[in-house]
């Protein structure tokens, strides 16, 4: 072969090989384009301004949104923000990646599943924090978790489950609701339109894929996915047969915020404003007035939450605790602890960190013994409310549903969270913590306590957990026939029970009423309460003719009670009033109704009061308290749970005690580790220096009766009982109470000790100096003779 031929053959071979290699490496024609090939992720060029975010919206199918077209889909953060900001990286961040996080980090506030009816306060977390249960271990799927807590979630995580999770739980309605993607605007939206309440509303309506659009005010969302059939799909479009009830969610975009190229203007912050953080992270003392609340001293100095709690694109928010840098490998974290910023020290106390970031002052700590810095975290003296008798009860956004506004009252008093509980952590440092007592029904299998889902408990309990419901149903039914100024009530045990707008019962104490007086149904009229069934003689000729008309109305109203146990009847002095064939039947009470009086039900020919003794006794016992269960109810429900097929002994935990039925069949309470309180460190609000512990001296804490060491903590929970755990503040610190009392009392004589030491030092020092001078003088020959 000629040289030219050899060259051509070689070139052809090389070209063929190159084609084959490229062909092997190239994606198939039908494959989706690799996201990394089309994405041009932004990197900071050093300019400290934020670019105007006038960008085209894209939906979850990565199609551009034309706001004026019919039935546009909600915008998708993944495809709208994703082209510039790596969505897959962001979704592993602290707020979204709990399900997949390898390290749990320092304990934080758990999610608290609260169900007043069953008396459940169950701490949950996908992170392995002490005292919390993994949602899946108590039967909660990502779907359940999202509906329970989505109101305070920024999308992503459980609200954006993997395809495997979706396939594993076909009963979940992800195909109807869509997934709630990471909601960038929940934090980064600078617009005042960002509405946490709207987000919560959309989550409860199961409008997950629409929630971000609606909450940010990008568009107005109507319809409820929760009312649609599980077979509905986003591609099915509107429900043409129903414009009233099962209305398909839809978006009406604010077209004024779009330009002619259908680009939407996002008013964004690079660093989220503190208000966005506080939407889900507010903590306030219960019953405190807003005007009296002081801001965190850092906020008062002009800092934002994100000035310290920073993150990179991975959104691994710095939490700011000592040891975080070692746990995460992120050395920057050392700069953003209290010690790092104010002292320039890392967790080991080495001066290896640049102090004074953002103008953090260097604390003098004059006269404070070193042991305080070794044994106490900075927050002990500087954060949270000051110690007081009985601690401070607070409410948090996530636990008590704060900051969600609407017609209904969303915020709740329960669960009861208290602070500051000074507790020794695993590093033997004491730090202030928040505390909640868990309460839940469970089965004990061996030594393990397995919580039960509230629905499971309700199913087994039947009517045992419904006394309020029963009475409320009767009162609501009667309210239909009341005059405008009348309210049907039940009077019992010194309390007046009236129905409220949430179909529950409100109990108001009746001044001057006897606690042991028999219960009766009445009509509240102003401050007066008249009996529902007046005392009259049905046989009298001069009786009020209006009475029978009123009785007819009552009986008709009672006939509408949802779960009525029988036919309504009113018995007055051996005369029974009933409705027969739609008319009021007045007849002598049959023998079965002998002894009966007042309104009631006829069940299998026998008279039963409108509310059973159990129902009245139960609601009366709980009236005026926060508790939602009585010991009698717990005993009965435990009995009912014991009859179900599931294995393990049923138990109930509340107030730091475990309750179970003993061998004698009585309710018995005992200590159990699982009933112990769940705590997590608090860091804010940081108080000004003058309000820190120790500012007024050692006796701020070290005295014979200081609240810091000796205030008592009683277990709280939904169960009305005296069997609750009792602990002193010192016990959480791992310190002996007696010793602290003795040590505290020693501070009475401390001033005298200081004076004595000063005199002794002066005497010894002066004589020492004198002796030295004498010796020196003699040595130098100044003093020849003594």
């Amino acid at each position, binding site marked *: 072969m000629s040289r030219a031929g050899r060259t051509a053959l070689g070139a052809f071979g090389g070209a063929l090989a190159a084609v084959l290699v490229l062909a092997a490496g190239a994606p198939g024609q039908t494959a989706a384009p690799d996201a990394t090939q089309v994405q041009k992720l932004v990197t900071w060029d050093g300019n400290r301004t934020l670019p105007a975010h006038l960008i085209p919206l894209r939906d979850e199918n990565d199609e551009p949104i034309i706001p004026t077209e019919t039935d546009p889909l909600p915008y998708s953060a993944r495809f709208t923000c994703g082209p510039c900001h790596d969505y897959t990286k962001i979704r592993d961040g602290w707020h979204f990646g709990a399900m997949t996080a390898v390290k749990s980090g320092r304990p934080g506030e758990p999610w608290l599943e609260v169900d007043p009816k069953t008396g459940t306060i169950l701490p949950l977390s996908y992170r392995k924090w002490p005292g919390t249960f993994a949602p899946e271990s108590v039967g909660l799927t990502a779907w359940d978790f999202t509906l329970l807590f989505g109101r305070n979630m920024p999308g992503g995580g459980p609200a954006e489950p993997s395809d495997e999770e979706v396939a594993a739980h076909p009963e979940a309605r992800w195909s109807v609701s869509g997934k709630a993607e990471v909601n960038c605007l929940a934090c980064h939206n600078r617009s005042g339109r960002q509405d946490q309440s709207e987000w919560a509303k959309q989550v409860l309506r199961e409008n997950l894929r629409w929630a971000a659009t609606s909450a940010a005010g990008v568009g107005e969302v109507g319809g409820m996915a929760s009312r649609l059939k599980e077979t509905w799909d986003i591609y099915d479009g509107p429900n043409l047969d129903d414009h009233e009830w099962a209305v398909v969610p839809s978006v009406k975009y604010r077209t004024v915020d779009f330009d002619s190229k259908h680009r939407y203007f996002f008013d964004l912050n690079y660093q989220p404003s503190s208000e966005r953080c506080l939407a889900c992270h507010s903590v306030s003392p219960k019953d405190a007035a807003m005007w009296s609340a002081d801001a965190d001293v850092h906020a008062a100095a002009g800092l934002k939450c994100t000035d310290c709690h920073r993150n990179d694109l991975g959104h691994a928010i710095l939490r700011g605790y000592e040891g975080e840098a070692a746990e995460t490998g992120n050395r920057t974290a050392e700069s953003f602890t209290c010690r790092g910023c104010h002292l320039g020290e890392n967790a080991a106390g080495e001066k290896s960190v640049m102090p004074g970031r953002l103008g953090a002052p260097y604390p003098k700590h004059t*006269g404070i013994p070193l042991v305080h810095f070794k044994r106490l975290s900075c927050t002990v003296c500087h954060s949270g409310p000051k110690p007081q008798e009985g601690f401070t009860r607070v409410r948090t956004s996530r636990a008590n549903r704060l900051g969600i506004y609407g017609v209904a009252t969303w915020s709740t008093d329960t669960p009861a969270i208290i602070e500051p509980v000074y507790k020794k952590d695993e590093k033997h440092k004491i730090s202030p913590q928040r505390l909640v007592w868990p309460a839940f029904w469970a089965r004990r299998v061996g030594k393990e306590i397995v919580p039960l889902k509230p629905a499971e408990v309700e199913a087994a309990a039947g009517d045992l957990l419904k006394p309020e419901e029963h009475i409320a149903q009767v009162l609501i039914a009667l309210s239909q026939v009341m005059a405008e100024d009348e309210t049907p009530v039940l009077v019992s045990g010194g309390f007046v029970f009236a129905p409220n707008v949430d179909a529950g019962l409100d109990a108001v104490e009746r001044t001057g009423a006897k606690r042991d007086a028999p219960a009766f149904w009445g009509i509240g009229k102003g401050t007066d309460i008249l009996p529902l069934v007046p005392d009259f003689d049905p046989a009298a000729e001069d009786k009020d003719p209006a009475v029978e008309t009123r009785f007819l109305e009552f009986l008709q109203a009672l006939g509408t009670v949802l779960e009525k146990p029988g036919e309504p009847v009113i018995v007055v002095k051996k005369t029974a009033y009933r409705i027969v064939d739609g008319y009021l039947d007045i007849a002598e009470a049959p023998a079965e109704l002998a002894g009966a009086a007042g309104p009631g039900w006829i069940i299998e020919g026998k008279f039963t009061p409108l509310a059973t003794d159990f129902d009245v006794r139960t609601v009366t016992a709980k009236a005026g308290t926060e508790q939602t269960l009585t010991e009698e109810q717990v005993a009965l429900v435990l009995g009912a749970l014991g009859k179900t097929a599931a294995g393990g002994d049923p138990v109930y935990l509340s107030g730091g005690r475990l309750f179970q039925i003993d061998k004698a069949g009585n309710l018995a309470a005992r200590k159990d580790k699982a009933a112990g309180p769940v705590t997590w460190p608090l860091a804010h609000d940081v108080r000004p220096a003058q309000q820190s512990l120790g500012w007024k001296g050692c006796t701020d804490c070290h005295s014979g009766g200081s609240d810091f060491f000796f205030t008592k903590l009683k277990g709280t929970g939904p169960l009305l009982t005296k069997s609750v755990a009792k602990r002193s503040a010192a016990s959480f610190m791992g310190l002996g109470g007696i010793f602290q009392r003795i040590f505290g009392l020693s501070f009475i004589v401390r001033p005298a000790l200081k004076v004595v*030491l000063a005199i002794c030092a002066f005497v*010894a020092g002066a004589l020492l100096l004198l002796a030295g001078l004498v*010796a020196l003088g003699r*040595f130098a020959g100044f003093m020849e003779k003594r």
Partner: protein
Amino acid sequence: MLFTIVTILAVAGTFLGIALHRFWTTREEAKSTILYAEVFKKYLAWLALRTVQMSRKASPKAWWAYVKGLPLWREPVLERWLYIGLYGSFLYLAASGFFFGIFIPRGMFGYPLVGHVTAGGLFAVCLAIIVLFKGRDFITVPKPASLSLSLLDPRRMGITPARVKLWAFWLFVAAGFLLTLSALLPMLPLLRTAGQKFMFEFHRYSALLSVAAAMVFAGLELFEKDRPSGLR
């Protein structure tokens, strides 16, 4: 860790020094050779022998008899209680301080700490009274010195056991003063964290100094008492 090492070295060095002094001044074999290695070997052998002898003799009964035989009990009542206060508080302070300082990483805490503070107060008071009323007994009056190279000659410095004992007393007083000062100052609103840290270390090393001084003083005092009169 550094403090532990320094403590071990200081205490061991002081003990061995006192023992060497006793060996040198009481044992004939110490003068039998001029070779340091030989002297050192004999010293070690003597030290081992004494250790064995003392351990054989030691028993609670023997210790009790020794304590009862101390001249302390023959002092007038005020002085007796003054010395009991000083010795007792110093022993507790040293024992608790060095035990927690060396063996407990957390440092002193709890009841031992309360006891330490209380004993510290007692020690300071006793020390001040002793210096005030007994210090004069420990004043040594050196002769006026002349400027010459002989000032640098150890053999001409006039270092005698009696003078070392006096210096040990004043060193003990000085250490006690520093201990009192370093306990008092952190209690006052004067020192910042760095000052507190310094005082903490200062307190520990002052305590070490006081222990070393006390060892020298006690060693020489007891040696004087036990020494055959012919060798004094």
